[in-house]
């Protein structure tokens, strides 16, 4: 019996992945994700998309050393630099971007969605760049790699930071086949099917199917491939959410007989790919409220859900060996 074994090979120790997704700009949640490597003693950190925050809070300078900002429908008067730092920390926890400006600059943005979107891209890319650097620092000297990709809510402009900043420990796995141990590879697709929110990276179900097919053409043994697909399989129980009326903004729940209507918002192409390829495991996100697991033949598919707004990192530890899941554990850190 060999004294040392390689990760992932038959009779060897399993490779342990930690998977999380949908943190939407939340600073403490991302930092927890990085620390999960050591805390959970895993071999790789896999992120499943939706890195970018959704809110941008302008902090307007008043006369004197004071500021004002809106949050949760309330007007916040900030009267000292210490309070300002505390307020920004709170925004970081919530995953909100912020910038200081004077009244004129604020007025320049107000009502101009194109300018606001451009500001989002700048701040989100800046933040993602910092996160990549932080990952490189924290994981330096370890064997752990962190695999990052975008989701439907992330813009391409923001995601460009992944290639620009990644060095040794960070791997941009978006739309690529990457190796995760000696015998397993991972296919990553960050797109989702169309949503009522008309988000930046939506594709039709057919287009998602084409992307998956193109990726899988390069995989010799699908049974030893991990699927990291942001969008969950259709009607799997991992994709259940309220049906929303997209004709109003923001989209509102569809109510029938006094009750909200639920439906599966996942992808048929993803479900078909799981059925057809029987990969090692399916890792999915996108629908925060649909935490759970299901099976496609021998393949287990998971969605750990998300509670990034409370600073909670929902995730999944999965141990794989020889193309099989030998253990899993949902986490709520």
């Amino acid at each position, binding site marked *: 019996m060999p004294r040392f074994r390689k990760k992932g090979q038959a009779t060897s120790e399993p490779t342990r992945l930690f998977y999380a997704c949908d943190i939407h700009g939340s600073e403490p949640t991302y930092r927890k994700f990085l620390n999960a490597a050591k805390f959970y003693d895993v071999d790789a950190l896999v992120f499943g998309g939706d890195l970018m925050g959704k809110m941008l809070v302008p902090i307007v300078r008043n006369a004197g050393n004071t500021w004002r900002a809106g949050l949760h429908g309330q007007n916040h008067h900030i009267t000292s630099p210490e309070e300002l730092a505390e307020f920004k920390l709170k925004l970081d926890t919530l995953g909100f971007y912020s910038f200081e400006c004077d009244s004129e600059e604020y007025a320049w943005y107000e009502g101009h969605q194109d300018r606001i979107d451009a500001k989002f891209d700048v701040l989100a890319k800046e933040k993602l760049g910092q996160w990549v650097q932080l990952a490189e620092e924290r994981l330096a000297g370890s064997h752990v790699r962190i695999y990052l990709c975008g989701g439907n809510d992330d813009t391409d402009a923001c995601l460009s930071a992944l290639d620009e900043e990644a060095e040794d420990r960070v791997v941009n796995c978006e739309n690529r086949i990457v190796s995760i141990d000696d015998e397993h590879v991972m296919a990553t697709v960050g797109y989702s099917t169309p949503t009522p929110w008309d988000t930046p990276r939506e594709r039709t179900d057919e287009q998602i199917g084409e992307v998956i097919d193109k990726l899988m053409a390069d995989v010799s043994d699908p049974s030893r491939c991990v699927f990291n697909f942001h969008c969950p399989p259709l*009607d799997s129980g991992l994709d259940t959410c309220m049906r929303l009326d997209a004709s109003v903004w923001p989209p509102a729940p569809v109510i029938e007989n006094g009750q909200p209507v639920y439906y599966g918002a996942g992808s048929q192409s993803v479900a078909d790919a799981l059925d057809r390829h029987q990969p090692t495991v399916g890792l999915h996100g996108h629908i925060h409220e649909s935490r*759970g697991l299901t099976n496609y033949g021998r393949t287990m598919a998971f969605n750990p859900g998300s509670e990034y707004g409370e600073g909670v990192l929902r995730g999944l530890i999965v141990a794989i060996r020889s193309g099989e899941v*030998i253990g899993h554990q*949902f*986490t709520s850190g």
Partner: protein
Amino acid sequence: MAEAAAPQVFTRRASGLVRVMSPYSAFIYNILTMGIIFPWTYINGPTALPGGSLIIGIALAFLFELPIALAYAWLATSLPRSGGDYVFQSRVFGGGFGFTIVFAFFVVWILQWVALSGWLMATLGIAPTFLGLGVATGVSWFTSVGSWAATANGIIVISIINALVSFALLVSGFRNYVRFQYVMWYAILISFGIVVIMFLATDPVTVRAKLDGFALAVDGTKHWFAAAKQAAVAAGISFHPPFWVFGTLMVAPIAWTSLQWASYSVEQGGEIKNAHVFRNQLFIIVGSLAVTAGLLVLLAVAMQHGVGGDAMRVASAGSWFLLPTSFIGGAILMPNLIAIALTASPIIILLIGVGYILNSFQIVCNCYIGTTRIMVAQGLDGLLPDWFSRVHPRLKTPVNAHLAYFLAAIPVIIAYNKVADWSLRWALGVTFANGVVFMFSALAAGLLPYRAKKVYDASPGAKYKIGNTPLVTILGVIGFVTATFMVGAFLLVPELGLAYSGHGITYAVILGTVVLGLVIYFIMRSVKRSQGIKVEYAFAEIPPE
């Protein structure tokens, strides 16, 4: 000087999360769970605790529960997740403790409630309704059905159908339940309102005469009330007891068996819209507690006014001492049966009966809803097999957990009605067991700022302090003390709980369920370790730095 307008928060096109159950639905859910139809205070109190004041006892139960309910509001806003008590206790005390307590004292012991809800439906709903219809219409078939419903076999059949229909409704989709809940809510309010109005509009002399007439029509018994009272006196029941302070204090734990459920909505915290908003949780938990306590006091006042102490003691002699002379048609004289005896209108009888039947049905639904969510949470955490956590892809409900609970309930239903003393021992055991969960959750609330600091600091309740002490710590500790008092009463006071049965086996079984929980925990932990996984990871908070 005019205040400058708040700068607008800029947004972009990004997806959002929406939750399901409205705070109002959760508020109704809690009131229905507390069960304004539960008769224990009225039918057990007068003879179990002679001289105890029902009204003061209910008020005390409200005061004892208030700090617990407030502490729960903090927990529910800090951790608005499905699986409530299990999540709270796991977070604060650790997974082994949280799993064992909530599995043993909720998941296992609430099986008793499934049986009990069937018993309530049979004896409180179907039996009185059909007996009343039989008398009002002169159709003997109604009377026969009413009498059958109060027999052991009748209760078993009704209980299993009750559990089966609830299982079918809930697995068909939670929205179907929520929709039907409104029907139950209004039916129960109408029924309860009718009973209260009837009692307020009558007097004890009229009630005694009406009960005589009702017993004559159902059983052919003449001068029923006088005979029942005489038998009760012969059994040693005092009809003129002096006011008893300790007895009044002990009424509170009985009333608490209803009011302790004010926080039950936390089990589906992940499904309540804006569950993290403090005022919503105050409305849902504390608001439902106040309304229910008020309704219970109202019923007590109405009964004392209209039914009177003598008839209440006769009814209580049937319930507490099981004196057959106090039964009518084989049924215990529950408040609604008294009300039904007062009217000759089949419509009024049906309105009363449907309300009580639906509230009984709602209780079995609560058993499923709360425990299956706990089982799903425990399954996802790896402490129960995955099978329990599976959500049906088409129905979107945890069918496996529902099925397991339905099947597990069947032998309990049969034993509850067939095994001698079962209902006495174990129905009282469940009041203790469930109380323990609330007791530890109150303590978890008190320790939350210290044991789950990050979660607490991010919660809306973190800003409330007295001096440097978080308000939730003060409320949690007070709640823990009041809950300990009531749990202790169930444990030690013969008139209330486990001590009444006089059997050591009752305590052994309570301990046995804890051991069962621990055994499952250690087995699952061992299985997970063999897979290279530690279950402790499910509960541990990762430091961000």
